[in-house]
């Protein structure tokens, strides 16, 4: 047997949640909103798929970067319970912020970063539907 490489390993876990949102700036007129956002001004929803990637050295005793059951618990409590079957526009995190996929990905980073550690959290990949996703590697 050869000694496996000592570099970091990336582990990704996938989650799903469904949420409603609309694109609307309160300080704009309805016409301005419709011009900028079109059909997105009406309340609608998506089945989101969230991929959380962590990076770290492998614990040589367990062979793991992190207990993925623990990752599931952290993401479940901080993100899934908060956003699943919720109207994102009602969440205080999106007061004055349009819940675009981009903003939602950054918000999820901000929720998970302190819990997972900014060194360990590597990437948030958020799929709004199977045709569109964004990636965020942190500030």
């Amino acid at each position, binding site marked *: 047997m050869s000694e*496996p490489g000592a570099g970091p*390993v*990336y*582990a990704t876990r996938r989650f799903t949640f469904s949420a409603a949102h609309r694109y609307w700036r309160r300080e704009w007129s309805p016409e301005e909103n419709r011009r900028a956002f079109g059909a997105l001004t009406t309340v609608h929803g998506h089945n989101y798929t969230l991929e959380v990637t962590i990076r770290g050295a492998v614990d040589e005793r*367990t062979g793991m970067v992190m207990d993925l*059951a623990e990752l599931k618990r952290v993401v479940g409590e901080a993100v899934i319970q908060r956003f699943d079957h919720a109207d994102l526009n009602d969440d205080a995190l999106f007061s004055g912020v349009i819940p675009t996929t981009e903003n939602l990905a950054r918000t999820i980073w901000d929720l998970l970063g302190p819990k997972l550690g900014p060194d360990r959290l590597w*990437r948030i990949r958020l799929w709004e539907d199977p045709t569109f996703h964004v990636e965020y590697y942190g500030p």
Partner: protein
Amino acid sequence: MARDEVTLTRSYHLSAGHRLASPALSEAENRAVYGPCFRPHGHNYLVEVTVAGGVDAVTGMAYDLKRLDAAVRQALVDVVDHRDLNADVPALEGVVTTGENLARTFWDWLARALPPGTLRRVAVVETANNVFEYCGEGELR
């Protein structure tokens, strides 16, 4: 990365049995750390191999996929497909067969089998919800 360098990713399926149990831990500790993964079970693994090369001006190809397939088959798929990773693969002796360890072990095997410096990433897709990736000295982007 050179301007004309292109990366290619090819996927390989393999099915294998395994269980997670570390010789450094007691049975009770193994049960606590690995939960259901302590029991013998198996996966339909998908291994993604990403390689890089300059585009050949004549063939338009950055990598000969036939050669890649043959090398990956010999160095990896034929070694682990339809095997018990904990019992039937001498090269994995002493390795706790987590996705993390498989990703970096497969990297080692493939780095030796492929043209030097061309391997960029090995991803072990254990289930649709769990992916483990190793990029050697490179960064995952």
